[in-house]
């Protein structure tokens, strides 16, 4: 465990989480959520849970982003609230 790396990653994780829910443009929100998943995968690997990190990188950063963007193509693309 490298504590300074952990602190940095968790800081970026919180920044990404807040940005993903506060931004108005939904495409940007999806991309930020994908970045959140990537950082989360690194955090899992850092906590010696390689299997979970692998799943997070494949599903969280890969498939869900594609599915969200495909959904967005059928909707408006801007948040009302």
């Amino acid at each position: 465990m490298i504590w300074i790396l952990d602190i940095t990653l968790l800081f970026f994780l919180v920044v990404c989480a807040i940005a993903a829910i506060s931004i108005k443009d939904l495409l940007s929100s999806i991309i930020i959520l994908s970045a959140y998943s990537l950082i989360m995968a690194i955090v899992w690997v850092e906590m010696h849970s390689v299997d979970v990190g692998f799943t997070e990188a494949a599903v969280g950063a890969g498939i869900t982003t594609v599915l969200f963007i495909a959904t967005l193509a059928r909707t408006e693309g801007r948040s009302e609230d």
Partner: protein
Amino acid sequence: MSGIQESVIIRTVVRIMVPFIQLFALYVIMHGASGPGGGFQGGVIFGAAIILYAMIFGISEGKKKISDSFDRILASTGLTIYAATGLACIIFGGMFLQYSAVPLLPDTALVSKYLIDLVEIGIGITVLAVMISLFFDISPPESEAGEVEE
């Protein structure tokens, strides 16, 4: 057709990358028992390779590779492999997925090694088929596609 589907660079890179992504997915599936990875992760990566191909070359081109009926056959085949392996263990007197009960080879550790790989392959096939069908069902029809990637 939008900009990213006409780009020569993206089309060439995807054409080169897809076989390597699929090879990596097979590696992940086969090493699931001994290292990180497994049937689920490998299936997701294999499905992502085909989704990438369908995204760049168009949904109809992707459906030529894996049609809806073939997708359904794949999903049920994987589940059948998984269930048949588990039930074979019951038939030979063990519990569900108790690999050492199957008298395939004299060495029970080797039997369980091979059967775990078989189960992982079944999981991988089902997961890749479901991921592909999720993408095909959720993606917009060809005429209105590409509005978001302007």
